[in-house]
């Protein structure tokens, strides 16, 4: 029976581990034409996750449209296993890519090991603020609490039941920042609003995210939000019940056109442009970039299909202006 127990334990551990991630590498072969700039991205989930990975993929598409043949880029998605990601990062550097982007905070220690071996290559690591003091590593992050705050203000003005549900993945990094900002925003409208936060312990368990949403709805929430790629399950449940949803990371309007009021969308292309021009000027690293509402790294994108009152729109403009000029300071929990 020991064997049975051991096997079951291993299975459970595997399931928990898998629950936290997504996989399978896919790369576009880089074409060796004249002398284009070559960028490679390694990212933990899929390019069409409507969230974290899609945001960087969209940014590269924007740059590609601008630069045309001047840019070649390769993308390794679903690299949730950090060792696989490290191999991919090293591989791209070996192949002579000019800029290698490690788009996942979990890739830090790998990058710390790899970057010194390729002093000519620019590495960018996000979302983080740590460049390890290395001359060829940039760090980038998103002030996602800002967009979270703005979404929270809107949600606070729209809620009738004064109960708002949040479906989070794991209480860390970008997701935690967004959720904390959202809660603060909603409370700024009316401190009595009950913002209930659930973390489901997974970035990929769509079914559990959906059940978390159903639970919020049964408990009286009339507005939902959430962060990371598994929220599509939750958005579906908001749609079924005719509730409003607030999105983050990528534009989620297209998925549920009657449900998503607005999304905080990341526009990493601004930061990438800076990295490119710094490289042209001979600076390979050492900078920390923050995508914010002020520098256009984050944009609140409204869904044209959902009408909201002018009062709310005005309040959103005021809030964004307040965050930008520093008159609104988002409290940290």
């Amino acid at each position, binding site marked *: *029976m020991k064997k049975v127990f051991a096997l079951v334990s291993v299975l*459970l551990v595997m399931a928990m581990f898998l629950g936290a991630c997504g996989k399978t590498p*896919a790369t576009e072969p880089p074409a060796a034409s004249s002398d284009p700039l070559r960028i490679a991205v390694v990212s933990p989930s899929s390019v069409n996750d409507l969230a974290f990975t899609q945001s960087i993929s969209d940014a590269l598409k924007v740059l590609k449209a601008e630069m045309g043949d001047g840019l070649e880029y390769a993308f390794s998605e679903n690299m949730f296993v950090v060792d696989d990601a490290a191999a991919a990062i090293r591989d791209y550097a070996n192949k002579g890519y000019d800029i290698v982007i490690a788009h996942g905070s979990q890739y830090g220690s790998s990058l710390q090991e790899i970057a010194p071996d390729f002093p000519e290559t620019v590495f960018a690591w996000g979302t983080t603020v740590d460049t390890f003091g290395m001359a060829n590593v940039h760090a980038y992050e998103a002030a996602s609490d800002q967009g979270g705050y703005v979404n929270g203000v809107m949600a606070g003005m729209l809620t009738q039941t004064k109960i708002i549900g949040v479906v*989070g993945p794991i209480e860390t990094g970008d997701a935690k920042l967004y959720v904390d900002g959202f809660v603060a925003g909603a409370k700024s409208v009316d401190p009595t609003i009950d913002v209930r*936060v659930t973390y489901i312990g*997974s970035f990929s368990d769509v079914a*559990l995210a959906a059940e*978390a949403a159903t639970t919020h709805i049964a408990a009286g929430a009339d507005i939902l939000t959430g962060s990371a790629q598994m929220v599509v399950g939750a958005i579906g449940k908001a749609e079924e019940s005719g509730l409003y949803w607030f999105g983050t990371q990528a534009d989620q309007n297209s998925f549920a056109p009657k449900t998503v009021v607005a999304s905080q969308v990341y526009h990493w292309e601004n930061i990438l442009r800076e990295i490119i021009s710094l490289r042209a000027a001979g600076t390979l690293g050492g900078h920390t970039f923050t995508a914010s509402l002020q520098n256009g790294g984050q944009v609140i994108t409204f869904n044209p299909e959902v009408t909201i009152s002018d009062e709310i729109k005005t309040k959103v403009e005021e809030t964004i202006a307040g965050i930008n000029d520093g008159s609104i300071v988002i409290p940290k929990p």
Partner: protein
Amino acid sequence: MISDLFSATVIIGIVSSGIRLATPYLFASIGEMFGQRSGVLNLGVEGQMLLGAFVAFYVTLNTQNLWLGVLAAMGVGALMGLAMAFVTVNLHATQGISGIGFYLFGMGMSNLLFQKLVGTVEGVKGFQRIAVPLLSKIPVLGEIFFNQNALVYLAFLLVPVAWFVLNKTTLGLKIRAVGENPEAADSLGVSVAGIRYLTVTMGGVFSGIAGASLSIALLNVFQQNMTAGQGFIAVALVYFGSWKPFGILGGALLFSLVNALQLWIQVLGIPIPAELAVMMPYILTILVLTLSVSKSRGPSALTKVFEREG
């Protein structure tokens, strides 16, 4: 706070969530149980579920026919099962390793097909809830048990049917004989290979439905790696349920109800850290397993290759 857990809304919420969450586990575990009772451990359930989930979603997206989606998921599950049977029965491959291989294949293939054929996350109109006439009007119980979608009902019906097939039919007797003592079964003229092909293929069919129950019944969306380890939990539940349909039912319900409970604990703001709440179903499952497993014994020929002598 803690007392909030005992209101009618919360109890109805927990049990009906638990029943929905248990649905994919039931399909996948019952299917896996038949394979294991005949001596084949299939660790590829997760891959079969992912491919089933994608195919069901894709067919439904294009035909708007949900049952056609389920049928397609069954078909692709059957193919995966057949391949697994071929590799383990004919080629005598190690079951554990080949199962992992099929898991990786199913995951990679579903990712690839999704990217090439669909490309972006979108929704379909999936199975709607069906209120069973009269029964759904019973207070509390009606809301919990008789207001779910068609695949939920099917999953729960499958349990007694599987019990009957396994224990009361000749086929069930043959399956058990092949799993306990294939040499003896063979000497009595039972085709060991035939039975194993049948059970492993059937397991694939049910894993396919399990995937479909996620993508077109519980969620109505496909996302890469959306099963998030449920296929492995399903294999664990077979052990947990001591290779018996009702044991599996108990395990699936326990795991799912505790999962639903931890969501409510978080929603109600009961001060337990989210990390701890999320671990509850896993910890409890391991705990119950340690306390109960000592009596049960798996099929003797499980994972053993059968070769005819002479």
